[in-house]
């Protein structure tokens, strides 16, 4: 009894995202937009369904790229169960002591470790550390969320059948009422983007804001992004920017495609400033981010993609035009969101409407 998605019953649609890493400034607005909307309850303190990490870095959970999971030669790869310490975050602070305990002048506010090591790491612990030496230090930001994979190894690993991939849009979801908190999904996910709610004893992950999508509203992470770098749409919409960036122009790549799960979140890889020589002259040949590092994340095609982006930039600098750059610049904000351009403020949120949506009677 293996829960594998059979082709004839598999998804016919796939909602997808492209993140242009050249525009990400690491502001965490996407992370906070998600946090405020979905993970504010007890047990969810450490959960960041969307998070932004500095690369190179150890990420969240700490050293997640070394935790296994995914698929190799058709077989699932055993994964490590990230501990509370490896996720870190969700801290309590000594508010009582400092604000009400009469020690406001002698004790600093600090996180109180409950004994599980969770104050030794957090979702963005190694922010802006990056790598390299001055004046050639380098880093970039990598937003991550559930990849809503074409082969959801999380759902395949679950013995209860609580997880499934929605046929109409490929979103990977979990019936939390059926979830028994066994956490095989957490191990099996090679991206380690499934969290465990220690209060409710269920696993949880990004739901691609499906209640918003169903009303034509883009996911919160995408809509709130001030950098206009998150494209949302259906992967097979040949008129949409996602299809063009991924398939037509081939400038958006999967993160760690070698994990074998077919992630449906794509990234335009980051160009970097050139290196400076010892005399502070510019080395126009050597990019500051080592290409082999980018290859370790985005695969061997990353070099070709960066060449394409550089060539497009050159063409525009020489007075020409570039459809790729016009698309990535996003002159029109709404052009990011494909069919999901509805303004949530325009939706009917009357008590009667909400009651219908929730299946409850109005007060």
């Amino acid at each position, binding site marked *: 009894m293996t829960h594998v998605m059979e082709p004839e019953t598999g998804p016919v649609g796939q909602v997808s995202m492209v993140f242009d890493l050249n525009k990400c400034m690491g502001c965490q607005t996407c992370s906070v937009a998600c946090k405020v909307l979905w993970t504010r309850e007890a047990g969810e303190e450490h959960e960041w369904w969307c998070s932004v990490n500095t690369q190179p870095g150890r990420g969240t959970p700490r050293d997640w790229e070394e935790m296994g999971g995914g698929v190799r030669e058709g077989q699932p790869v055993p994964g490590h169960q990230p501990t509370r310490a490896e996720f870190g975050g969700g801290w309590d602070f000594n508010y009582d002591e400092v604000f009400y305990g009469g020690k406001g002048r002698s004790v600093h506010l600090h996180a109180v470790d409950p004994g599980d090591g969770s104050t030794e790491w957090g979702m963005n612990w190694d922010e802006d550390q990056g790598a390299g030496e001055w004046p050639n230090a380098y880093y970039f930001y990598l937003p991550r969320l559930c990849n809503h994979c074409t082969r959801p190894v999380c759902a395949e690993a679950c013995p*209860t059948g609580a997880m499934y991939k929605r046929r109409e849009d490929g979103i990977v979801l979990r019936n939390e009422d059926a979830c028994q908190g066994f956490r095989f999904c957490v191990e099996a996910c090679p991206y380690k983007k499934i969290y465990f709610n220690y209060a409710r004893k269920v696993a949880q992950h990004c739901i691609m804001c499906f209640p918003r999508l169903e009303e034509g509203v883009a996911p919160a992470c995408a809509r709130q992004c001030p950098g206009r770098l998150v494209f949302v749409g259906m992967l097979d919409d040949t008129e949409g920017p996602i299809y063009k960036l991924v398939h037509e122009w081939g400038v958006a790549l999967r993160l760690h495609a070698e994990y074998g799960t077919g992630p449906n979140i794509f990234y335009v890889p980051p160009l970097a400033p050139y290196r400076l020589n010892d005399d502070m002259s510019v080395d126009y040949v050597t990019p500051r981010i080592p290409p082999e590092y980018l290859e370790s994340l985005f695969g061997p095609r990353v070099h070709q993609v960066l060449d394409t982006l550089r060539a497009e930039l050159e063409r525009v600098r020489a007075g020409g035009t570039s459809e790729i750059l016009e698309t990535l610049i996003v002159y029109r904000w709404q052009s990011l969101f494909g069919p999901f351009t509805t303004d949530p403020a325009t939706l009917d949120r009357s008590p009667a409407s909400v009651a219908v949506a929730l299946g409850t009677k109005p007060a």
Partner: protein
Amino acid sequence: MRAERRSGDLGDPGAAAWADAETVTVALGPIALEAQPTEYIRVKWADRPYGTVREVRVAAAHDGRRLAVRLEWEDSATPNTEFPDAGAVYFPTGGDAPVATVGAPDAPVHLWYWQADLADARSLEGRGPGAFRPTGTDRVAAAAALDGGHWAVVLMGELGDAGAARVGVAVWDGANEERAGLGAVSSEWISLEVV
């Protein structure tokens, strides 16, 4: 195993009502790797022991309305902050439910499931190792005591749940990351005589 009618607080594993109850020692063992329900679990646990608790002492009693089953087993000394210890008793609810795999897709069992970190016991339908779903309706209660290196757990539910007069037992060692189908189970139904 006889479940006699007794007075006293059967929901308390340390209650005097349990002192002279008939206790049977049940041998436990792991569910076969091939029977584990997902490829991921079979790959991950191929070379790793599970179902490590070797035996459990079982007693049963009732108060005319509720049946109580008391389990007692030695606990692994290694603490684990991620996975809790757990124990369950289960009853066949339809067809010829297999005890050694905690039910089958077409032959379910009804589990009364206790977990050390849960405030409430769970009422689950089992259709194979770890293929558990909430039944949604039945009320199950549990109380547990960890004392001197062993667990004593009482699970209580409706007397009617034991109508088939057979009960299975399963125990999970959290320190060994045992959960779902990775627990130790009884290889044969224990006959249950409610008197």
